């Protein structure tokens, strides 16, 4: 099945991979091994994705062991894999894909836009932090967990001198540990998950002793260095005038407490970047585990649109190891769909390993459940959408008054999700507020429809060879 472009003259379009993280790189490696020359498009200047992000070229000399810790071996292997095929792919770093339409992507690089027709499309778009707001979350010094990790890995700098880590998920302990290792004072780890829940889930982690050992090591290391770890907490507010001065939190016993700090890193797991899949026409389904609408895909990563594949966290959160396997698996599916021979034993092996990770994923989810009641505690005057200055109360109001029973309607009436981030940051909050006000599950309020551009597009964008869009008939509408 090939995409038939209605817009572009018949050319032999290449397969295109969006994203050069673990999934994208392993997909490219597999296509190259089969004799294809895929295009690899990536927003970053250097390959590796978020998890294995490389420091900028020149002047950064920290060894990989310091940057990636336990994952240094994996990071290095992924980096080397891409380096090895560098000459056999059409690699497009520093390039934003801002649209997908009629069998072609639109790329923005160095201020110029160009269309890129594809024969097949592997979306390895990754994920960003899932956040819910709390009073003071817009103060300077409050970062997402992922953002605070990127600062460390990419720039070799910390978000503060004394950092509080808030939220839940494996990243919470990992980043706290990395900050401690880097010589930053950790004011505490404030986990929203009750201790009993985590302890129960730990038993299930014995399926994957290596991960369990790492988790225990992080916790042990933090404790050994006197870092307080609190479970079952809820944030009360980030305090400060010019910037964060303290995190005020409520402990499991309901007492309000205060932790002085000059930065807060927080996050509640990750959310997939699905806008391109949406623009490509993929059908979506609600995923209970991720508490999000995700593109439908089969076990190999095929989306509902023939020739479009999903791999890695962009299709559902499963972590970096799964992303490597899923990238290769999607590439094998692509080769199979092109009628090329594939190694059946390898397919079977990948499927088995992906299934094992998926099973362990459920254990992790149980250990770090999404705090569904958080949204109820968000005060009406708390800003939930920074781009457009929308409060929690505004979203609740359109739900309560019967004006909005679904996300796009709430967006039209309140502007939540209409700003620069197009709902990538505030969407989860809006969905939680809407569904909890209406008394439905998070699946019942639908999802924001993607619109181009998926990230802000400079008006001054240069179009090297305009093919002359149909201009209007000179009439002014409305």
């Amino acid at each position, binding site marked *: 099945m090939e995409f038939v472009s209605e817009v572009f003259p018949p050319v032999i379009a290449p397969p295109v991979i969006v994203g050069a993280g673990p999934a994208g790189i392993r997909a490219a490696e597999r296509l190259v091994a089969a004799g294809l020359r895929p295009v690899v498009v990536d927003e970053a200047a250097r390959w590796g994705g978020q998890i294995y992000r490389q420091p900028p070229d020149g002047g950064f000399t920290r060894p990989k062991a310091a940057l990636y810790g336990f994952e240094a071996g994996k990071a290095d292997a992924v980096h080397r894999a891409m380096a090895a095929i560098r000459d056999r792919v059409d690699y497009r770093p520093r390039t934003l894909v801002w649209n997908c339409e009629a069998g072609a992507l*639109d790329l923005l690089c160095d201020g110029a836009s160009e269309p890129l027709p594809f024969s097949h499309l592997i979306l390895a778009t990754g994920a960003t932090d899932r956040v819910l707001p709390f009073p003071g979350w817009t103060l300077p010094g409050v970062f997402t967990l992922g953002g605070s990790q990127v600062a460390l890995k990419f720039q070799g700098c910390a978000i503060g001198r004394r950092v509080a880590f808030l939220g839940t998920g494996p990243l919470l302990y990992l980043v706290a540990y990395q900050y401690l290792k880097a010589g930053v004072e950790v004011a505490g780890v404030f986990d929203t998950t009750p201790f009993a829940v985590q302890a129960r889930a730990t038993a299930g982690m014995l399926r994957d002793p290596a991960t369990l050992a790492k988790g225990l090591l992080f916790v042990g290391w933090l404790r050994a260095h006197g870092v307080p770890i609190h479970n079952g907490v809820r944030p009360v507010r980030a305090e400060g005038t010019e910037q964060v001065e303290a995190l005020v939190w409520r402990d499991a016993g309901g007492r309000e407490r205060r932790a002085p700090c000059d930065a807060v890193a927080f996050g509640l797991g990750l959310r997939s970047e699905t806008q391109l899949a949406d623009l490509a026409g993929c059908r979506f389904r609600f995923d209970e585990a991720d508490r999000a609408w995700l593109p439908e895909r089969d076990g190999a990563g095929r989306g509902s649109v023939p020739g479009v594949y999903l791999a890695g966290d962009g299709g559902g959160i499963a972590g970096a190891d799964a992303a490597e396997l899923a990238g290769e698996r999607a590439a094998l599916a692509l080769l199979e769909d092109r009628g090329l021979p594939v190694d059946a034993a390898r397919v079977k092996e990948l499927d088995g390993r992906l299934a094992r990770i998926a099973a362990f994923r459920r254990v992790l989810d149980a250990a770090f459940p999404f705090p569904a009641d958080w949204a109820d505690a968000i005060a009406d005057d708390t800003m939930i959408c920074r781009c457009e200055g929308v409060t929690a109360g505004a979203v609740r109001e359109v739900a309560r008054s019967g004006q909005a029973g679904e996300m796009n309607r709430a967006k039209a*009436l309140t502007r939540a999700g209409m700003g620069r981030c197009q709902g990538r940051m505030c969407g989860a909050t809006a969905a939680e507020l809407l569904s909890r006000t209406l008394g439905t599950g998070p699946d019942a309020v639908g999802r924001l429809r993607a*619109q*181009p551009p998926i990230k802000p597009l*400079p*008006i*001054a964008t240069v179009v090297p060879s305009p093919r002359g*869009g149909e201009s*209007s008939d000179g009439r002014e*509408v409305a």
Partner: protein
Amino acid sequence: MRDRIECDVAIVGGGIVGGSAALFLRQAGLSVTLLERDCCGAKASGVNFGGVRRQGRPLEQLPLSQRAHAIWGRLPELLGTDAEYIRSGHLKLARSEPDLASLIEYRERSQGFGLGLEIITGEAFRRRWPALGDRAIGGSLCPEDGHANPRLVSPAFARAAARAGAVVRERTPVDRVERDGDRFVLVSGDALEVRARFLLNTAGAWSGRVAEAFGEPVPLESLHPNMAVTEPLPRFLDVNIGVEGGGVYGRQVPRGNMVVGGGRGFALDADRARPQRDAVLTLMRDAAELFPQLRHAHVIRCWTGVEGYTPDRNPIIGPSRTTPGLFHAFGFSGAGFQIGPGVGQTLAELVTAGETAMPLEPFRIDRFAAPA
């Protein structure tokens, strides 16, 4: 078991025309049921550019447009919200002498309709709009025209109608519509049957099916206006801008975002459309050329919608030629937002009084029929 509703007037389509008609009919004391296939004001009425503009319309639309203008002036009292409506003025730019001549000519022809157009050129123009000074040699200003947020205005009409006692059913597509003696019967799946003495066909781009059901096929085409908005910028523009003979228009909203439009999106299916890449890029180029202040801005979102266009770009408004009690109002061809409430009020008049002083002859539904 279907719900059954008996009422005076059934309305198909909850956009700005259907919603305002429902409100005015309720104010006249009739019972009203409004059926909307999606959400009220979610289609063309809610996703258009938001220009509230009389200037530049064909003269035959100006009586209705003036009528609508009076209603826009009472928005807060009618809807309980101002919906970001501002009488900022609408300035139509001329980039050449011939363009200026056609603006002057339009002012002459539209004398007597009360638009109060002012032609401003040369030094006076540059002093008043330094931001536009070297883009145009002059312009025609309609001081009382303006702009509003269509996402807020259009749903608010249907909501006000509901508060006034109209039955408003959203997500209720009409599958069947027929005549039964002196009643119209509308059926929505297994959910609902409505029987009414009068029927208003205000279903925008989907109105053709209703007209066809009563033996009045119309050449209606769906088109998709291409829109884009920037992040908020410092205020530099206080008027809604159009260009004589040019396909780009823009307005800066109170928050500072610049909304621009031009070109066409493309249809995904009969119900949905998307911005088209070349139209987006062309629009950005044209907008930056017209408004140099946008040079360093970003477009944060593009959108489009589905609008019904007629061959002569004038709407279809008035009584059915085949079926007593049926009234049409659709095919506004991308220019229904401002005029909509005036049309809604006129439909209410046709139902309650059986006549209107508004000249509707140019909007007859049978004007496209092949001459016998």
